[in-house]
């Protein structure tokens, strides 16, 4: 059986206790997106400031409330995408979901695992890999992916 240490790695608890990039950004120019986990009431708010000239995430702030997994994942996500281009951020989203064993391209029947592996070649998840233990606790996967789905939604909305 998976132990609690698999789920609650020290780095996760650290992000939970001292979340990075907490706060708000003025909208506009920033874009605000809210994500909810209807199952447990977790809530994530992502403020994204994307520089249209360079297509770069100039700044990101996060708010909301939820369990340690959702909040730590949000904090880590904010650090990982800040300063990255939108394309890099999208690849991170795919890489993170792959880490959570969610393979969307396979689910949607477009391409296979090999495509995904090629796509994600060279993507460094770093600290985020600490969240891999979540996979052993299926009901918590939604907690970990909430921030990333919200980010994805935000990027899509900005692109529109």
């Amino acid at each position: 059986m998976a132990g609690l240490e698999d789920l609650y790695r020290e780095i996760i608890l650290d992000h939970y206790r001292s979340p990075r990039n907490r706060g708000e950004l003025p909208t506009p120019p920033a874009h605000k997106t809210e994500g909810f986990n209807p199952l447990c009431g977790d809530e994530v708010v992502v403020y994204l400031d994307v520089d249209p000239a360079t297509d770069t995430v100039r700044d990101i702030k996060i708010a909301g409330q939820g369990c340690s997994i959702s909040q730590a994942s949000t904090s880590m996500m904010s650090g990982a995408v800040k300063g990255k281009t939108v394309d890099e951020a999208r690849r991170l989203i795919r890489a993170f979901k792959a880490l959570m064993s969610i393979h969307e391209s396979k689910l949607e029947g477009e391409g296979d695992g090999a495509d995904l592996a090629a796509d994600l070649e060279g993507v460094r998840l770093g600290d985020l890999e600490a969240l891999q233990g979540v996979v052993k606790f299926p009901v918590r996967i939604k907690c970990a992916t909430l921030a990333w789905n919200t980010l994805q939604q935000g990027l899509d909305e900005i692109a529109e």
Partner: protein
Amino acid sequence: MTITTPLDVERIKRDFAILSRDLDGKRLVFLDSAASSQKPESVLAAMDDMYRRHYANVHRGVYRIAEEATAAFEGARAKVARFVGAKSSAEIVFVRNATEAINLVAYSWARANLHAGDAIVLTHMEHHANVVPWQMLAAERDIEIRWIPLTPDYMLDLTKLDETLEGARLLSVSAMSNVLGTINPVRQMVDAAHAHDALALIDACQFVPHVRTDVTEWDADFVAFSAHKMCGPSGIGALWARRELLEAMPPFLGGGEMIRDVRLDGFTTNDVPWKFEAGTPPIVDAVGFGAAVDYLQCLGMDAVRDHEMRLTRYALDALTESFPDTLRIYGPRDVSVRGGAVSFLFDGIHAHDISQVLDEHGVCVRAGHHCAKPLMRQLGVPATSRASFYVYNDEADVDALVAALAMAEQFFAH
């Protein structure tokens, strides 16, 4: 004077096979009966015997086992009717669960009787099952929904009840909150509704399993409950309604069983309650429901209530004494006005994380919004943990909860 024999919980535990499951060396401590209860051997045996010896479709065949099946099915209805104090079995409509019972009233009675501008009164502590069907109706018909708020001590604030009911057509309220444990003054609220010519629907999903229920004494119009929370199987519940109301209501689902006659140009409906039971019913589940009622009656509902009051008091005391500064309980403190669903939160630790650590110790509690998001918003919290007690829980289960909570608190300590 009635004498209640206290529950022999040690013996009761042995009636529930699942409770002797070993979870990697840990005893299963099941504290989530408000979500769904476990099932005793007698219920499982009754259902098994039904399938093995008496199974056939009901109300149709003339052969012997079809008659046996029909007798068992209708016998279960009679047991459920007696259990809640119904005047006749015809007042018990078998449905899938309490949710379907409430939807039946919303689709049949309400759509035949409510019109634009009418009002329905709900409360801030309702389960989504007693909110969403009315919101769907309200959106369709332009019907107003009014809300009864809470007091700071987690009771319904009834100071403006009469005002709120002015001109309303229906009051729909839970008898016991699945989050706060609060028991509402049903008779008083039904009387107030009737004084304003409104009907009263009681969501008794959390009440019937735990407290002796007499729908006739309540003088209510509709009462909804589910078998799965009262030792019975999932997949069946009941709507009790006054017979005249059922007779006047249009049918809900159409099909076999609910008709008297069908011609090319129309149909006539069957008698109540079958008028509302289209299609092959959950035959074996009904038998299990009847066996569950037998089981509870055997324990005695007054003894069940006494036991749960004692255990809830023990739990409230243990939680406050063990975590005086860090744990907050959402619900009344007085066990005479509450049931055994105890919601709580630790300072700075999310309910989900608490449940996860508890699971590690074999303790099953619920974390989340408990299908009562409007209530959670009123409380200003995204989620709570909830421990809930039933006939098979004892002080040792509460002690296991407290011990596991202490470890959870330590685990997340800064």
